[in-house]
């Protein structure tokens, strides 16, 4: 739909993402604790999206639909229904689950979401459970806006479909040939420092950086999220899957030169 700018869709098998490679006999589809859900970006949110959501839930508060009413109600302008962003956290999971389902989702709305915001949802497996022969995973879920601010924090319980092949987030894109003359990349330089603290930041921005290199510098209005630095990380990095290559690639990516 024309009103939606969605640069990032759900599972995209053509992008070379690696599957977790579950088998029918593994109810957890190859998942382990600490595994990450491919991040999921939506936005910028426009007034039509807000209006559609209001119609879909049959609730028409001036706080979401009328700026004058919103100001009279104490806000600088209309704000976005929190569960619209919440629906995207859930959508990140349903796309990832490939036929599994979200059993429970519990979301806390940490910061307001405004028109024009881009929302990037993230998830990380926190527990695996077996219930009635089905694999279930608990997933920490969080979402950030384009300023890297945490807007939603929560958790979900997902039921896995036996035999589903779940996708990992993509590894950072490495240039296959000599990159063009590097553009000044002040932002990526800052961002590249972040992954050491915040693992989930690795994926989306890496792809976005590649785009940035090969095109003229554009303002980051499309879904290129700021490097995520959530104020409260749901979980510290666990070392279940050492990914030194990824971090090394991150560094080289920043400089664009050495491997």
């Amino acid at each position, binding site marked *: 739909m024309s009103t939606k700018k969605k640069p990032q869709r759900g599972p995209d098998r053509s992008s070379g993402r690696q599957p977790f490679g579950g088998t029918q006999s593994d109810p957890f589809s190859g998942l382990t604790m600490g595994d990450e859900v491919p991040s999921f970006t939506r936005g910028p949110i426009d007034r039509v999206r807000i209006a559609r959501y209001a119609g879909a839930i049959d609730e028409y508060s001036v706080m979401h639909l009328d700026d004058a009413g919103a100001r009279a109600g*104490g806000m600088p302008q209309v704000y976005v229904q929190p569960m619209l962003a919440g*629906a995207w956290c859930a*959508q990140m999971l349903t796309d990832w689950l490939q036929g599994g389902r979200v059993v429970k989702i519990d979301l806390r709305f940490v910061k307001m979401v405004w028109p024009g915001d881009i929302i990037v949802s993230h998830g990380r497996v926190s527990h695996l459970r077996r219930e009635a022969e089905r694999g279930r995973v608990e997933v920490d879920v969080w979402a950030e806006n384009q300023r890297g601010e945490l807007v939603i924090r929560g958790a979900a319980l997902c039921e896995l479909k036996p035999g589903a092949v779940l996708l990992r987030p993509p590894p950072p894109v490495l240039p296959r040939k000599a990159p063009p003359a590097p553009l000044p990349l002040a932002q990526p330089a800052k961002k590249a420092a972040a992954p050491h603290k915040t693992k989930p930041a690795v994926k989306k921005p890496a792809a976005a950086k590649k785009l940035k290199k090969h095109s003229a510098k554009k303002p980051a209005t499309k879904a290129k999220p700021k490097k995520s630095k959530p104020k409260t990380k749901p979980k510290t990095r666990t070392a279940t899957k050492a990914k030194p290559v990824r971090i090394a690639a991150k560094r080289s990516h920043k400089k664009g030169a050495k491997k």
Partner: protein
Amino acid sequence: MIERSLLGRQTPPSHVLVEKGAIRRFAEAIGESNPLYYEESAAQAAGFSSLVAPPTFATTLATTISLRNALGVPEQRLLLSEEAIESQRPIVAGDRLTVWSRVADIQEREAPGGVLGVVTLESEGHDESGALVFKCRQQIIVRRGRE
């Protein structure tokens, strides 16, 4: 002040038919493109009797509006701070559900920055056999008005 006598108030049960059009409109509103939410043939091929609802669709069935109105606070001062949804099974078009909501908790606060209180509303939906299908819990902040 939030009307404390509301604590425990429950709406009468309402009977809801989950409609295909409502599912499609919700899916479209959140930007979903999964055919399970739009095409009955796709949903049936996946083993459902009709269109499946996205996981947060249950919030459209939760009948909290009368309780929110009963708080005695203009809607402009209500701010959703937390939402939890739990379902026992996917919700599907054609489901006939009985839904009710209740005021589960009222916490009054004298917080600087204008928070008067926090209200927790819980909703549940049961199918025709009485089995629980979904539960929602909303935590709503009541902001102080400009006085």
